[in-house]
């Protein structure tokens, strides 16, 4: 993470329209070399579309982007030679063995012959696939498949990696292992943009880009994002019937937002006075008030709030 190396990824006003629908809307993004950036956003936010534009798989409708110093629109070939990509959908050949898949991707990336076998060995060791080299990929469990896909994506030693939800549907232990690999690669100077739905994974990133409805909502380190001003104070309400309490609180003046987190509620209130009135308010609504305590916002609180605020603004603007 050297301060003055040129950024590995730059996007300026990156936009993708599918017909009348805008999937990605004027996205600005800068990723420094060696950074691990998490790409977070609800379903359909435009994460995959952005990544596919950065890979040169989709032509941007507007704006520009450069990756590893090459312009995505004008030098797509050079970009492709310098990136590794794991698509959201698992996409190795199930009817080939691990080794055959690696050899195939090594071949189309023109990995030089003398180093090919060594790189394949490295990828197999990295994925923990020793002894399974000649198994058909379709017979492997999810975690192995994903690590093998990562192995295929880095055979040509790309300086920039785009990983689109690499850990979706993989059990927690395998997810942790995968993130270890990501950090090992990053320590070796590889820049990584990784999209995910898992909030705990967001914490593993140097910085997080929060995207919603095609727009960048916030960008910063996990610490910075947690410290963002949410426009009120956050409280946790435990020991209540969550559904009934939620319905009641959403009608209470002074409550900006309430959301269910497991068996508790997170309630964002305008001021401390509102928090004090909450117990009596719930009682009047025949809901047993539980234990209320102030908490520091988690990343998820921040994301929920930012996304909600963005759509409120949109509705306000539209009215």
């Amino acid at each position, binding site marked *: 993470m050297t301060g003055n190396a040129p950024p590995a990824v730059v996007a300026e006003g990156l936009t993708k329209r599918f017909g009348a629908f805008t999937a990605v809307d004027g996205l600005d993004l800068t990723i420094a070399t060696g950074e691990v950036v998490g790409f977070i956003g609800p379903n359909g936010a435009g994460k995959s579309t952005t990544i596919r534009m950065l890979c040169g798989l989709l032509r941007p409708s507007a704006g520009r982007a450069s990756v590893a110093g090459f312009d995505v629109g004008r030098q797509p070939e050079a970009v492709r030679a310098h990136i590794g990509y794991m698509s959201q959908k698992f996409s190795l050949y199930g009817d*080939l063995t691990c080794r055959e898949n690696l050899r195939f991707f090594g071949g189309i990336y023109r990995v030089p012959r003398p180093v090919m076998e060594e790189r394949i060995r490295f990828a197999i060791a990295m994925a923990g696939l020793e002894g399974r080299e000649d198994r058909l990929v379709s017979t492997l469990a999810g975690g192995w498949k994903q690590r093998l896909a990562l192995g295929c994506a880095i055979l040509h030693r790309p300086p920039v990696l785009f990983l689109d939800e690499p850990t979706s549907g993989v059990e927690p232990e395998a997810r942790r292992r995968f993130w270890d690999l990501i950090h090992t690669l990053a320590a070796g100077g590889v820049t990584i943009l990784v999209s995910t739905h898992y909030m705990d994974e967001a914490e593993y990133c140097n910085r997080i880009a929060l995207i919603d409805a095609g727009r960048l909502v916030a960008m910063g380190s996990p610490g910075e994002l947690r410290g963002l001003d949410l426009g009120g104070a956050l409280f946790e309400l435990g020991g209540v019937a969550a559904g009934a309490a939620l319905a009641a609180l959403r009608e209470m003046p002074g409550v900006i937002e309430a959301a269910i987190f497991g068996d508790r509620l997170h309630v964002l209130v305008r001021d401390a006075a509102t928090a004090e009135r909450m117990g009596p308010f719930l009682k009047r609504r025949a809901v047993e008030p539980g234990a209320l305590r102030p908490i520091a916002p988690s990343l998820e609180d921040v994301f929920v709030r930012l996304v909600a605020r963005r759509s409120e603004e949109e509705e306000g603007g539209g009215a």
Partner: protein
Amino acid sequence: MFERLRAMLMKEFLELRRDRWAIFRLVVPLLIQVIVYGYAATFTVNRVSTAVLDLDRSQASRSLVSHFVATGRFDVVDVADRQEQITRDIDSGKAALAIIIHAGFAQYLYDGKTAPLLVVVDGTNSNTALIALGYVGQIVAQFQAEEMAKAWPAQSGAAPATVAVSLQERPWFNPGLEDRWFFIPGVLGTLTLVQVINLTSFAVVREREMGTLEQIMVSPIRPIEFILGKTLPFFLIGLADVVLVMGLGVWWFDVPFVGSPLVMLLGSSLFLLGALGLGLLVSTFSRTQQQAFALNFFLINPIFILSGFAFPIAAMPRVLQWTTFLNPLRYFLVVVRAVFLKGVGVAFLWPEFAAMTALGAGLLALSVLRFHKSLD
């Protein structure tokens, strides 16, 4: 270029080898269709109901009729003595074919002139009619050769006059019949086309469905390398199809093959360019294999109908005739029949070869262009 192409080909080969049913799927339907087509055609042709009208009543004319009977392929159902009787036989369906020998047939022969033999065919059943005409041709050729041998010694001194029998084919309901013995050769072109279009389009669409296409396209591979890697195996399979059907036709169904295998190979290769181009083109319009299947279905039927395989092109409305010029199968059928039955070479077939080359190049170029777009 070559490393990437080799990687593609290697992968295709491995996938094919791992597909236990590949050989079965590739070969068996083809064999079954050829055999069904082949028997459907030959069964009717072994006993063609024939009416004979011999107005010459000469030794030569009787000899000719006996040649027909001797082959066992013609079943003389009526020996007529007036033209109207023949017309009735054909119209009522009693006879599928009539042989009319005009008075003076023998005289013409011995004068060294062209002796007319009128063969009337019930054109409604064009398959039988054409095959039967093929037999008529063979029998007449044999008869002619024998007559020539007899006549030769008589022509002492002077240069021998040519002895020839001309056929007047007059199919009454289907005046556009042009070719003979078209069946197996026609099946050859049609089945190869269907096989190659299906294989190519499904193979590419399958990669799209699996997501591997996206994974490949994000590599520095050039689309042309991917396309070559994807089509080369099917090109070879297409050639194998041609050889297989040819072999079956020649050795099992006794279709004469008088032409050059090299001309056939060249023609098949050019034809396959078009078939591969069409398959690729379909794949650029299809997201799923079902879509590709539906598109192929809509594509293959018109190609078949507008090829001249079953319905004569000359009998089509002018507009449809124009569209057949864009149909690679149209040209290939001409090539196959001509090479099989007439033994002609490139000197005669070059317009067809040129048309297939142009169509193949055009279709491939178009599909490569569309392929770039379809990734979007």
